[in-house]
């Protein structure tokens, strides 16, 4: 396996060849030989990246890194959405209006749009271990600041600052890609992302529970919620210390030992960015992710208050129901990717696109139902349906993204992630900030918008594989994977041979033709497909 220069844009997702099923548990291919001289608890490849994903192990350094990484991400989700289940108390203490609450929700997801973009560069400079630790420990004071605010402006400002910590997503994915072989990186990253997102659900359980415990000790409501915020703050400090003391950047040590292979040419950032931005598919998936991940974040912000107000439940009960929404990430997000892979085995990329459209549209339908239902049991049922389908759609999106581009993979992933947060802020602004309509109506309108904004996936067309409604291009030259990925480079660059990595990826991505790949002539130097 080649060691691409670690400073390159896109290197956070390097190693994803596109040929492996996105959710394999271990690498069987003989193309990736095990390094028998390495003394790790898991079998490793020549770069000492793990070839096996052993979920319940804490072996140093690979699985330990996995657990440190996803738990840090989980912690930042807990603190970013910690205010949401306590809003019924906070809104009375700080005399908030609906607009204030809505603006704070928007602020909580907007900060990370910028911090995620910066985090990639930070990881490149100081390594993912320090990147994660710095972010988590410098955002701890912002969580403690929640206890000090006394008006709407303070509430919005602090939620904005805490939101920056969601950039741990980037350090998490980056760190995983230094520790795990490219053939299983899809599953590892998907699991880490899904389990981290669960923090948005766990916080809806945790904060009301802490609030109740503190009240039992005799505190009044307006003091109890402030004390409750010390727990997420301390979680930040604990995770930061664990990451610093137990973590390491690379399987063999820390980033000071990193070396770059001189013969791999570094790509120019401006070219990669241009390539990403001029590919229309990038923008389709940015929009789509805004309406799968984005609406998930918005719902994390509003759902507890919705159940509290509409059905007159107490804080604990509405928190438990709201938690079910976020916690289904445990299985739903990986399931979406798995469905994408299963469909692709038979029907290739067209199945992935149909899978994504079906999951996301069903999510929108359940969201409409959620807003309209008048009875509590039906509401909860609709909410669970909405959560399962929306989160599966998130997983399915990242089943397609690795194939949109090889040259600009990292930037497209970053833009898609940013699109998620942008969609979150936008839906919160449109439907949950003005007093013109109730939260229930807002949810239904959001559901309609989800279904409408999922339609653009029908126009995504890959000349080599087709789109939802059309087969692959009949043109002999354009219908090859090599043409698609090669055309990301100019003729000059191709002459210099800079596109070799893309060609290799193109070969591996032939599996996206589905069953038809059996009839395609096998080039002599391609390793057999293992699933």
């Amino acid at each position: 396996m080649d060691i691409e220069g670690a400073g390159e844009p896109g290197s956070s997702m390097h190693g994803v060849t596109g040929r492996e099923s996105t959710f394999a548990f271990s690498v069987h291919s003989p193309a990736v030989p095990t390094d028998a001289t390495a003394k790790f608890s898991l079998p490793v490849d020549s770069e000492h990246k793990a070839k096996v994903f052993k979920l319940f192990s804490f072996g140093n350094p690979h699985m330990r890194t996995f657990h440190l990484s996803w738990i840090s991400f989980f912690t930042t989700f807990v603190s970013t959405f910690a205010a949401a289940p306590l809003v019924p108390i906070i809104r009375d203490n700080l005399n908030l209006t609906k607009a204030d609450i809505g603006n704070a929700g928007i602020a909580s997801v907007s900060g990370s749009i910028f911090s995620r973009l910066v985090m990639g560069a930070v990881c490149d400079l100081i390594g993912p271990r320090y990147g994660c630790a710095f972010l988590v420990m410098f955002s701890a004071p912002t969580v403690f600041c929640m206890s000090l605010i006394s008006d709407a402006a303070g509430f919005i400002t602090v939620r904005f600052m805490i939101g920056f910590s969601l950039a741990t997503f980037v350090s998490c994915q980056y760190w995983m890609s230094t520790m795990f072989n490219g053939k299983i990186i899809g599953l590892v990253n998907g699991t880490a992302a899904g389990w981290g997102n669960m923090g948005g659900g766990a916080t809806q359980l945790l904060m009301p529970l802490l609030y109740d415990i503190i009240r039992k000790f005799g505190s009044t409501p307006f003091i109890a919620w402030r004390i409750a915020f010390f727990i997420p703050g301390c979680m930040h400090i604990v995770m930061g210390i664990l990451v610093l003391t137990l973590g390491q950047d690379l399987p063999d040590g820390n980033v000071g030992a990193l070396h770059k292979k001189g013969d791999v040419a570094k790509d120019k950032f401006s070219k990669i960015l241009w390539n990403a931005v001029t590919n229309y598919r990038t923008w389709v998936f940015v929009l789509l992710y805004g309406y799968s991940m984005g609406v998930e974040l918005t719902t994390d912000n509003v759902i507890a208050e919705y159940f509290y107000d509409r059905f007159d439940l107490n804080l604990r009960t509405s928190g438990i129901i709201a938690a079910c929404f976020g916690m289904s990430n445990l299985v739903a997000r990986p399931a979406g990717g798995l469905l994408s892979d299963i469909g692709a085995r038979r029907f290739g990329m067209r199945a992935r696109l149909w899978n994504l459209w079906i999951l996301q549209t069903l999510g929108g339908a359940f969201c409409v139902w959620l807003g309209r239902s008048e009875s509590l049991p039906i509401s909860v049922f609709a909410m669970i349906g909405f959560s399962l389908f929306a989160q599966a759609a998130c997983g399915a999106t990242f089943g397609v993204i690795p194939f949109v581009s090889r040259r600009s993979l990292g930037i497209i992933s970053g833009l898609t992630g940013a699109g998620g947060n942008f969609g979150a802020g936008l839906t919160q602004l449109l439907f949950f900030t003005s007093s013109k309509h109730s939260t229930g109506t807002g949810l239904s309108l959001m559901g309609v918008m989800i279904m409408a904004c999922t339609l653009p996936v029908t126009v995504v067309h890959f000349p080599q594989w087709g789109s939802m409604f059309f087969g692959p291009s009949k043109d002999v030259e354009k219908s090859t994977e090599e043409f698609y990925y090669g055309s990301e480079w100019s003729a000059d660059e191709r002459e210099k041979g800079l596109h070799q990595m893309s060609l290799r990826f193109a070969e591996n991505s032939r599996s996206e033709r589905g069953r038809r790949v059996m009839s395609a002539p096998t080039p002599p130097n391609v390793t057999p497909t293992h699933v």
Partner: protein
Amino acid sequence: MGSPSLILTALSLLLCCSSAVAAEGVLFSSLKPTLSITASFKKGQALVAGEDTITVSWSLNQTLAGNTDASYKTVKVKLCYAPVSQTDRGWRKTKDNLGKDKTCQFTITTGPYPAKAPKSGGPFTWTVERDIPTATYFVRAYAFDASGKEVAYGQTTDTEKSTNLFEVKGISGRHASIDIAAACFSAFSVVSLTGFFVAEKRRRTSSK
């Protein structure tokens, strides 16, 4: 896995809770203002939660009531939000269906309705509690029948809820000990990270 058991827990919880949700209620527009209620408190500035008091007393308005007060069994006096504190705050909305109405969220006092004359109650002195939020309020009394349904009311303000309103200043919730603890924890976080970074850098340069 965690998810299915959570779903089951939620479903069983809401089956218990759904029975607690009040679906029907008396319409406020059907009630007659047969109670006259007075509330006295410190005038001029906002009442401070936890310190200032309100003294309420109510009596039956004989001319309006006639003999309808035979069904009155209990009287509850409540603290209610004035319209200015309800704007842009759907969780305090006034609805005619008293089962869904959120105007009056705090109870000042509850007591039995006297069977014999004098048909009045009070004066009750109530300290504004520490969980009352900063807002503008008025006082309303409801009379309930034996089944717990509202049958009459009286309030300290007019029908438009524009006169005789008073303000309460809630506690801020902030406390010196919380401020100090937050500062200490934050400082610890920043200092330990910087210290670690510097120490590791020094170890790396000294070992090179």
